[in-house]
């Protein structure tokens, strides 16, 4: 445990030094609020730049809070995932490449500590950034679009957090697989895209696919009710993540022993 804390602290200092703790939360706030704000001001924006004839009245239905939540989550599912993958692609692969991993692992450091400390540090960064971003979105929803209770906000954090847990773990998994950061990013994105296509095609069979989380969260906010599908999907997502984490430790161990 002492050793794990040391490794974890090393990761935290590193993420602090390369400013990830500053820019990732800032970008996540921007991701969360840009869409809601531009939607809110869309009539005025069209009015100002559209060149429509004088007197045209633009009426747009005001989106419900649930739809605005879906907008923010949509941004996290695309650009957010991209940022998660790009920020973590070099965390182990890069260290193996430039020899830092070797320096650490000649000391009696347990592989499971090395991997899980990196995983935990990155996960914490992403979850905090997401919470900050979603909080900004929640603030604007209450200001501009209608009531969204704080409890709903907390449930959004909890359930969408499992999806982010999966993305981070997937990226760490590929980190142990490949030595080139670019390949890590490529295969992480590819896996998520393929999963989403498969989920769309076999939707009826894959009710609990992690890719469905956003939809179920939208339903949860809309109907103000936690469905069994949402709970089931989250459990499946967490379970897959745990398996991936154990697998990455195992793969890393065998690979290092061979070398």
């Amino acid at each position: 445990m002492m050793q794990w804390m040391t490794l974890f602290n090393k990761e935290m200092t590193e993420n602090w030094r390369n400013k990830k703790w500053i820019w990732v939360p800032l970008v996540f706030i921007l991701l969360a609020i840009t869409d809601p704000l531009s939607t809110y001001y869309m009539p005025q924006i069209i009015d100002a730049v559209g060149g429509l004839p004088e007197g045209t009245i633009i009426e747009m239905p005001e989106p419900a809070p649930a739809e605005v939540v879906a907008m923010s989550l949509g941004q996290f599912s695309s650009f957010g995932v991209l940022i998660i993958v790009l920020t973590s692609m070099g965390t182990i692969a890069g260290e193996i490449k430039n020899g830092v991993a070797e320096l650490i692992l000649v000391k009696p450091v347990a592989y499971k500590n090395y991997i899980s400390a990196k995983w935990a540090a990155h996960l914490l960064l992403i979850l905090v950034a997401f919470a900050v971003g979603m909080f900004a979105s929640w603030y604007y929803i209450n200001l501009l679009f209608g009531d969204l209770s704080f409890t709903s906000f907390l449930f959004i954090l909890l359930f969408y957090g499992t999806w982010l847990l999966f993305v981070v773990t997937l990226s760490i998994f590929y980190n142990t697989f490949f030595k080139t950061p670019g390949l890590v990013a490529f295969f992480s994105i590819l896996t998520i895209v393929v999963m989403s296509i498969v989920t769309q095609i076999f939707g009826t069979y894959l009710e609990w696919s992690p890719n469905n989380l956003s939809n179920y969260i939208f339903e949860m906010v809309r109907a103000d009710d936690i469905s069994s599908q949402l709970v089931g999907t989250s459990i499946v997502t967490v379970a897959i993540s745990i398996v991936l984490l154990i697998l990455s430790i195992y793969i890393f161990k065998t690979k290092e022993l061979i070398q």
Partner: protein
Amino acid sequence: MQEFLENINWGIIAPLFFIQGLLLIFAILDWAKADNFRGPKWMWFCIIVFINIVGPVVYFLFGRRRN
């Protein structure tokens, strides 16, 4: 356009610009102190300053060489 600018509640929009500004400032501060870049240093300055939001992000992701 005049009317458009008057119709907007700046109290609502201001945080958006403020955060973009923060991102820009932190990127510039980091850029000013660093010396190991991928490519020429002035190029990264242009990327950070002239490409909104994406510029600083790309700089933070790819600008510095790890050592």
